[in-house]
């Protein structure tokens, strides 16, 4: 098992190198100029040129790339062109809200979607199944920002139960944090829930038609036991896979959700940096996101061995 994990970890190194290369050159090929944004709308072309020189953006691309790689090797993600703060500091400031939002979304989605999918499979082709699948289609089709606005209108403006926006850090109390992320988690979790519920249903239906399930039924095993002990565990591999794939969905969803609910997380940091062409932040964040995605894939792969011991061989 340890050798398997080590092999997988080593395999991530070339992935990260490709990501680093890709990010740098893609960004520098993208039109846009941070110097022009910094100098502002009233600045003359000469002012912009002077800012560009000061930032080192007039240096040859290979020189900028060499500096970028050298800094990366030293674990330095660079310094924001605009705020003059190290990218790592900015990431640390934003990490907690994003992690809390992602974890809570994942928890809400998994906790609700798996039972929904199991229920739909158990009551296949009944009204319950149709309601669950209807919700699933809706959850996947309605954009996150629209769900967000609707939730804000109902729960924050109309009922005044929850705040419209903002994030309360964990250090100020768990209740405040939960209140502040309740609506964003729900909005972001809708797509995720829809995806997991659908896959759970499909996977369960497949497993439920297997011979050993029929045997279990014939032996008189109770229905809940068949569903949860015998079927769900065997249906878990595709579900776990989709949870892992959904992580990328979660990252892109976080960007929108954090904007709508004003959560000061990594998603908003990314969007703001892209709009302003703050290269070091964009580069640093994409590398971090890529690293996180690789890590999640690794965890998913490891979890396969738990659900399906044949994979270990």
């Amino acid at each position, binding site marked *: 098992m340890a050798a398997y994990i080590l092999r997988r970890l080593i395999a991530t190194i070339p992935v990260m190198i490709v990501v680093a290369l890709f990010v740098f050159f893609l960004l520098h090929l993208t039109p846009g100029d941070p110097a022009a944004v910094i100098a502002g709308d*009233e600045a003359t*072309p000469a*002012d912009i040129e002077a800012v560009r020189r000061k930032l080192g953006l007039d240096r040859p691309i290979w020189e900028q790339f060499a500096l970028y790689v050298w800094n990366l090797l030293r674990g330095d993600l660079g310094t924001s062109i605009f*705020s003059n703060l190290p990218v790592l500091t900015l990431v640390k400031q934003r990490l907690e809200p994003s992690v809390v939002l992602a974890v809570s979304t994942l928890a809400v989605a998994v906790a609700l979607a798996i039972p929904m999918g199991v229920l739909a499979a158990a009551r296949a082709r009944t009204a319950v199944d149709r309601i669950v699948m209807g919700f699933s289609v809706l959850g996947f089709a309605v954009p996150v920002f629209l769900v967000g606005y609707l939730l804000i209108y109902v729960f924050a403006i109309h009922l005044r139960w929850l705040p*419209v926006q*903002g994030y309360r850090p964990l250090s100020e109390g768990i209740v405040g944090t939960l209140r502040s992320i309740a609506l964003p988690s729900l909005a972001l979790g809708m797509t995720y829930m829809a995806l997991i519920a659908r896959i759970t249903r499909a996977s369960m239906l497949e497993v439920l038609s297997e011979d050993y399930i029929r045997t279990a039924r014939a032996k008189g095993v109770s229905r809940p036991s068949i569903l949860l002990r015998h079927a769900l565990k065997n249906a878990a591999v595709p579900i776990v896979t989709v949870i892992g794939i959904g992580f990328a969905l979660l990252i892109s969803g976080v960007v929108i959700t954090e904007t709508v*609910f004003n959560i*000061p997380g990594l998603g908003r940091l990314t969007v703001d940096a892209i709009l302003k062409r703050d290269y070091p932040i964009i580069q640093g964040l994409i590398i971090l996101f890529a690293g996180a995605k690789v890590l999640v894939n690794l965890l998913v792969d490891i979890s396969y061995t738990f659900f399906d011991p044949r994979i270990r061989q």
Partner: protein
Amino acid sequence: MSITVRKSGARIAAILALAALTAMPALAETKTLKVTMHADVRTIDPFWTTQTIAGIHGMMVYDTLFSSDAELKPQPQMVDKWNVSEDRKVYTFTLRDGLKFHDGSPVTAKDVVASMNRWGKRDGAGKQLFNYTASLAAKDDKTFVWTLKEPYGLLIDTLAKTGTSVPFVMREKEAMVDPFKQIEDVVGSGPFMFKRDEWVPGSKTVYVKFKDYVPRKEPASGHAGGKVVKVDRVEFIWLSDPQTAQAALMAGEIDYLENPQPDFLPILEANPDIKLETHPAMGTMGILQLNHLHPPFNNVKARQAMLHIINPADFLNTIAADPKLQKLCYSYFGCGVAMETDAGSEPYKAPKDYKKAEALFKEAGYKGEPITILHATDHQYINPANLVMIQQLRKAGFLKLDVQAMDWGSVVARRAKKDPPANGGWNIFITGTTVLTSSSPITHTSIGMGCDKAWFGWPCDAKFEELRKAWAFAPDLDARKKIAVDISKRAYELVPYISFAQWRNPVAYRSDRISGVISVPSVPPMWNIEKK
């Protein structure tokens, strides 16, 4: 068992109640103003960038020698008294008593001199002022002398400018930093102190009251008068989504919203707890910038032809549908300001005439070459303005358009390219400026026709620049107004750009929670505001 649980529950409740009670006085004492500005404070050096948000941050933390009052007239702020020599070349200024930086050190004339020198290297109006400056020197700790080569008439007005690149006074230490490099420490002498440890760029910027600040005795008026701080803390909360910002104001999660989206104004207006505030000179002027370097707009006839196609009323109805916010303004300097004039605007005001426009384009040698338009699709008013312009140009029926959609970040990079449109350059892009900036021919960067030194589009006319200079040297307001008329006529003749009218952007605030909001055209001050 249940008794034990109940007992511990009661104990916990008692502890929580006690904690709440002890926390209450502290909470009651701290008056925090929660504000959402039009942008986020991302840079802490107000000279390093001309972004207005940097000016707002600067106005919180730093003080100015002069300030503009509610009528946009300059008034002394850090300056106690000042005099000017008979030949209008030597200005002697004395700082008022009690001025202190946030680190406790006194503000001296040396700090002022260093700050003005740094600012003068970045700001357009500042550069102009320093072109006519013979020397600027500290005479003693509180006195400094500004000597001009010629009697440039705008020294005081320039020092009182608001909006972007305001001449703030920093400590000499920061003011000695290269103006193209960002300062590290924010230590001003203004009414608020910057809380660097609580700054989260892209999310929140916090300021606290500077207790040693000595306000002027006069009542607050515009940016002038006494800057009396009536709250303990101001939090700039950045809400990038306009819908969320509006909802946050309605729910009372913020007290003040600088730039509500025009679409939401009727909703805010209908709320009895929310007040909308405007200033006569408040607003934005649309700019349809033409590139003077390349065909067809390198020919004045093609630029004049555009006046017969572009209909500003359509732009207004799209950007700011509420008639109360619109101003069909034909003044290059904006309406509601001292220099307002529509001299020479007759062709623009006349009913649109596509045949005349076509004839003028032909005279300019236009043979159906594509006109490259840089269309920023991610901007609140620039995107709809582009759509209106494209529709109007298409309606004219004889122009071939090459519309290139991109984000605003790409437009600001692309517009700096002087290459022909086919090689990555451009013909037209749309932007805007504040009425405040355009109210003076000197601060109005985009009207300049200084050829290579001009703004993007690079208009070129020596006579126009002479007129701008004459305006700056005019001895009084009446003389300036007369020259402004000549400038306007020349501008309509040469069409450096096309202004597509003016619209107001009111600020919105919770009148049930705050009072004392000062009405200004731009860069809203946070002093004088009281939280109930």
